[in-house]
């Protein structure tokens, strides 16, 4: 456990040593959400809220609620990608000096979770400036869940592709998933949407934002998806570590 703590602290110190990165982690999600809420007019649109059905809501509120989780997904995905890329040589050295795999894995997951938590709090906070969710705690949870899912996917991408290819995938992925496939403005759910990582957390986020009810049917599959992504990332990580 002390090994995991040391490796975690090393990872956090690496981030803390780069003030520009810390500033960007706070500024970019906040700017992203707030900018959209400023430029979108307050016009009512019909919106499909999972637990409630169709509701008439202001476009700016809907956009704020969608953009918060999307910003967190971008940060999570890129953080996961570069965490795996930059830690490659360090992790190999750590195993040489006797650190065990679960400790390294736990530490890396901890750094990723902390990054997502910061981005999630900032994004949900920026969303709340434009529209206060009915269930803020659940909205924050859903936002962080999207970020963690994309963080895990970013880690898998970082373990299998190079940086350039990884950035391509993580630039397009959350936009297609969250902005288009899970959009509450759609008439019908796209055939692919239920299989994408953002599906259940976004349903949870929409319910938490616009109603007082939360459907467990959207909570458990989202957590199961996270577990599956976490397992895939762990297996890929341990294979890379063993391969040296």
């Amino acid at each position, binding site marked *: 456990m002390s090994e995991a703590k040391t490796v975690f602290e090393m990872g956090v110190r690496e981030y803390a040593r780069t003030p520009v*990165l810390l500033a960007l982690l706070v500024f970019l999600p906040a700017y992203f959400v707030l900018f*959209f809420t400023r430029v979108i007019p307050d016009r009512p649109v019909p919106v499909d809220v999972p637990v409630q059905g169709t509701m008439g809501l202001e476009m700016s509120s809907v956009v704020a609620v969608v953009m918060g989780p999307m910003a967190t997904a971008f*940060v999570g995905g890129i953080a996961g990608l570069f965490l795996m890329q*930059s830690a490659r040589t360090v992790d190999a050295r750590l195993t040489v000096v006797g650190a065990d795999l679960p400790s390294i894995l736990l530490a890396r997951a901890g750094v990723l979770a902390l990054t997502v938590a910061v981005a999630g709090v900032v994004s949900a906070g920026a969303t709340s400036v434009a529209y206060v969710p009915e269930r803020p705690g659940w909205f924050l949870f859903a936002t962080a869940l999207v970020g963690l899912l994309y963080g895990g996917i970013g880690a898998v991408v970082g373990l299998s592709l190079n940086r350039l*290819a990884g950035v391509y995938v*993580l630039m397009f992925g959350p936009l297609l998933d969250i902005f288009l496939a899970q959009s509450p403005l759609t008439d019908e759910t*796209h055939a692919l949407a239920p299989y994408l990582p953002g599906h259940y957390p976004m349903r949870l986020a929409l319910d938490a934002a616009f109603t007082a009810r939360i459907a467990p049917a959207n909570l458990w599959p989202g957590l199961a998806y996270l577990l599956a992504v976490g397992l895939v990332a762990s297996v890929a990580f341990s294979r890379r570590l063993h391969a040296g």
Partner: protein
Amino acid sequence: MSAGRDRRRMRVGFEMAIREFVREPINVALLVALPPVMITSYGSMMSAFPELSYMSTAPETLGSIAGTLFVAAFLPGVIGLFQVISARRADDRLALAGFPRSALFAARLLAVTLASVLTATLSISVLSTQTAVEAPIPAVLVLAFVGVLYGLLGMSIGTVLPRELEGSLVLIFLADMDEALASGIVDTDSPLTKLFPLHYPHEVFQAAVDGSPIALGDVLAASLYGVVLSVVTLGAYEAVTARGGEGR
């Protein structure tokens, strides 16, 4: 004599940039595979949207057009970013060996332009299978232009923020904001959206695809944007690299 030497230097820099890119087959594979995947996915996912009052055309067509512009702009954008970041040390050494900074910059930009032209050609071919493109020549020119525009943006970001994580974060947020605003998928009426790089090219591209007259004002505004960005990027590149790069 000097002109011939400059040309040779440019060629060496350009070949280096290309070799660096194609050394990893996954880069080439994604450059070829992403345009069809993105354009068809965008169109398909947009088909689930209702035709809202502010949309300029049917949602599926709107999606295909937005996806085409997105992929044509951002693939070269990411290449521009990594061209500058990953080649910083090599560029510094080349500069020490007598390569002018402007020749290095031009070689990088030439590589980005080649990627832009390839992506634009492939993207317009894919779009043609989804919807009729009434004016293909202006359409492909706009796509190549947005590729170079985002290539320059990537290079600017890579120059000012020469670390991969920070540079990628900024490019991703900028690109996705720009795309979401220019696409016409969300309703916007703020003049602030006109400051984003894809705003005017999107207007020109939309007109080229649906065959409506292309507004000269949009072409001029997009061109001005390109000129200003070129000057700013070259200025930043020369200023930062002349003092030894990232403060190492």
